[in-house]
């Protein structure tokens, strides 16, 4: 983020409050980027699990599935396997929801800050990514 206070002598005074707003905006901007990265990661993981569970629909019920727990593979019955996947999916869905609501919240407050800051500083400030 840069202040583009050009020669136009738009000597708007920066108050402590403005500084706080600018800081919050910058902080939120960093936070939202982190969250978006994490969200994408979790989403991918969830997709893998979804694929996995549909793949297992086709598996033979009597076969043991080699399921990875930690760094080792454990032979599990199909049922036990599906249970594990299900519970993991649940956790991930919850995480995803949490992330997306956080992201929404942050986007909201960023937009509010944008309005306030643009109103005060006009073209002297640039708040786009």
């Amino acid at each position, binding site marked *: *983020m*840069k*202040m583009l*206070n050009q*020669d136009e002598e738009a000597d708007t*005074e920066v108050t402590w409050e403005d500084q706080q707003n*600018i800081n919050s905006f910058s902080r939120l901007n960093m936070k939202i980027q982190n969250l978006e990265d994490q969200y994408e990661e979790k989403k991918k993981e969830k997709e893998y699990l979804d694929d996995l569970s549909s793949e297992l629909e086709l598996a033979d019920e009597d076969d043991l599935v080699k399921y990875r727990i930690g760094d080792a593979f*454990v*032979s599990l019955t199909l049922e036990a396997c599906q249970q594990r996947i299900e519970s993991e999916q649940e956790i991930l869905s919850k995480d995803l929801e949490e992330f997306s609501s956080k992201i929404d919240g942050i986007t909201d407050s960023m937009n509010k800050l944008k309005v306030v800051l643009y109103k005060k500083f006009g073209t002297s400030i640039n708040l786009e990514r």
Partner: protein
Amino acid sequence: MAQLESNPRGIPKAPFVGKVEEFTPETELESTLKKFQEMIAKYKYMEGHLLQRKQSLESKIPDIKKTLDMVEYLIATEDSTEPMLTQYELNDTLYAHAKIPSAKTVYLWLGANVMLEYSTPEAKTLLSQKHSSAKTSLEQVNEDLEFLRDQITTMEVNTARVYNYDVKLRRQRKEAGGKE
């Protein structure tokens, strides 16, 4: 500069410049700018350090979680009479078959070439503790990073404003000089 406040982890707070002309005398603009640059550099250095810590924590947490998962699985199958069938990593990318009769104890690698035997519930407690404390430190690191971001932004705005003020003064001086 006035006395500096700091955050819980002792990172000093950046000074805020209210009115440039009050903050620094005209003759010291350049040295002030230099000071600001130095402070930004210091903050960035701290930021780099913390980012590294964050990365190491972020890789440590899933590791602990993996181990915890396995211990929890062992506890869940403790009472089963069937031995557990597993392919475990004997070496990097090399797996071997193993039959493990229900395990009541496990060995945890504590680091520094030390491994200790734990009962599975104890191992679970220990790992859960490690897991949550790693998460707490990650939160703290994130907090610090946010705090640092605030200070860096403040300093950048300060720098821009002192700089602009300097430019303005120079032009005024030039204009005044031209008239004479």
